């Protein structure tokens, strides 16, 4: 594969973004779409500035819920993947039900979860976990199962115990897969938290989070503010994904092929 120059890789997203914004203004002008139906990008930024005193604390609340849910998912996904990835019997017993849980629309489960948890922070974490733990289990199980068979034979030849094989071979082998799962979960966690807040409304007691703000702006027909909340959510999700990408780099860059350099 020939190397694409770095400046092209940096200018492409800027260029495509500019095209997108031009299309946005063009369509609005061509079809005469009013600002309260579809605000302009500048209008959204203005609304964002205006609503900042409400958006900022709400983003903090959402970040906390998303982070809590993400951490629970990261731990739960890993711990559940271990038995499923190692034992054929346990995989047969549990994996189909995990799929069923994943197939059940979150919108069906959320009201129940919210009622069980009393509509507080716990409920927001529970919904975030429900929406973000499956990719972690799926990728980690895949990683545990795709351990190099020659390495497994090597460990068998060394009379390694099952425990040694798990912790010194299968788990490190699955690490890149686990981190991929974490990255997907990091993108989903803020969405889960916002959705839960939307369903919980202000009953959580605190500032209510971005989900609650969207709900309120929606009922007030403040469409630019709705979009501004969406943009804030995007930024929050971006921070989450960036943090996991950093973790991914820290764990893998020294040895994994996905960070291949030409320095040796």
């Amino acid at each position, binding site marked *: 594969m020939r190397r694409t120059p770095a400046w092209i890789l940096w200018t492409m997203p800027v260029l495509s973004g500019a095209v997108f914004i031009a299309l946005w203004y063009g369509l609005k002008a061509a079809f005469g779409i009013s600002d309260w139906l579809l605000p302009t990008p500048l209008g959204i930024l203005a609304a964002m500035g205006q609503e900042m005193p409400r958006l900022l604390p709400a983003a903090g609340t959402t970040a906390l819920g998303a982070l809590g849910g993400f951490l629970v998912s990261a731990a739960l996904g890993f711990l559940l993947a271990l038995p499923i990835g190692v034992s054929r019997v346990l995989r047969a017993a549990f994996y189909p039900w995990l799929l069923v849980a994943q197939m059940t629309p979150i919108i069906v489960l959320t009201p129940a979860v919210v009622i069980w948890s009393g509509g507080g922070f716990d409920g927001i974490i529970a919904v975030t976990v429900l929406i973000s733990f499956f990719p972690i289990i799926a990728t980690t199980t895949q990683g545990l199962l795709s351990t*190099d068979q*020659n*390495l497994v*034979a*090597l*460990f*068998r*030849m*060394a*009379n*390694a115990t099952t425990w*040694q094989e798990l912790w*010194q*071979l299968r788990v*490190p082998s699955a*690490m890149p897969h686990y981190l991929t799962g974490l990255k997907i979960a990091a993108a989903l966690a803020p969405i889960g938290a916002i959705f839960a807040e939307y369903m919980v409304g202000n009953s959580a007691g605190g500032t209510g989070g971005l989900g609650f703000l969207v709900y309120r702006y929606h009922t007030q027909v403040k469409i630019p503010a709705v979009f501004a909340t969406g943009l804030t959510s995007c930024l929050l999700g971006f921070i989450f994904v960036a943090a996991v990408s950093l973790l991914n780099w820290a764990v893998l860059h*020294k*040895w*994994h*092929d996905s960070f*291949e350099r030409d320095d*040796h």
Partner: protein
Amino acid sequence: MADPAPIVKFSGVTKRYGDGPVVLAPLDLAVGRGDFVTLIGPSGCGKSTVLKLVSGLSPATGGEVRVLGATPRAARDRQAFIFQDATLLPWLTVRRNAELMLRLRGVPAAARAAKAATLLDLVGLGAARDYFPRQLSGGMRMRVSLARALSVAPELLLLDEPFGALDEMTRHRLNEELLALRETAPFTAIFVTHSVAEAVFLSNRILVMSAHPGRVAAEHRVDFPFPRRAGLRGERAFQEKVNEVTAALHRVEAPAA
């Protein structure tokens, strides 16, 4: 070599995987202490299967396999296996890879570090001990694999086409190093290869195997004295031996073609 207690003894050993074809016809084989036996033959002749049976990675279908006077599995901690691929753990440095077998056996950190350092120096990788496998060439990776295998001071070393993926020069050099290592820490070896020249250079016994089902078609003794040096490859007697084994190999491959 008329050793009364062979290192490896096959008595009427057969092997088939599941309901598949018979991979090994009844095979009798005795490998004496200090032997360097090379198995050579067309694909499907069961030469890699022999190594799997000796190591206990796969059980025999019929007959009996004895290794170092015990069952293959019971003899595992006295043998080591070198695979076609270097099979290094990519997340461990060269040093930690070389220590792996000792760590799995519960050898204390200081003792295994010392042992690994000695062996890495011996295979010429002392300066690369903090590298990760992906930073090494194929030949260097195989050297780490060699150091790792020798760290447990095996009495029997099984090698399954270990140098097949390397270029000719590297392969020659590693052949010479393997024999040199054997001078310092003697081990019995069973070696699988496709290269006749490699087989002649390394072994004192070459078993030419034929396929469908796998069996030993001919045995060739190679009596060049050890230690052998690179210059041996240039000698007329060496070339004659290569021709002799190549001819035997053609005889077993012809009927299948």
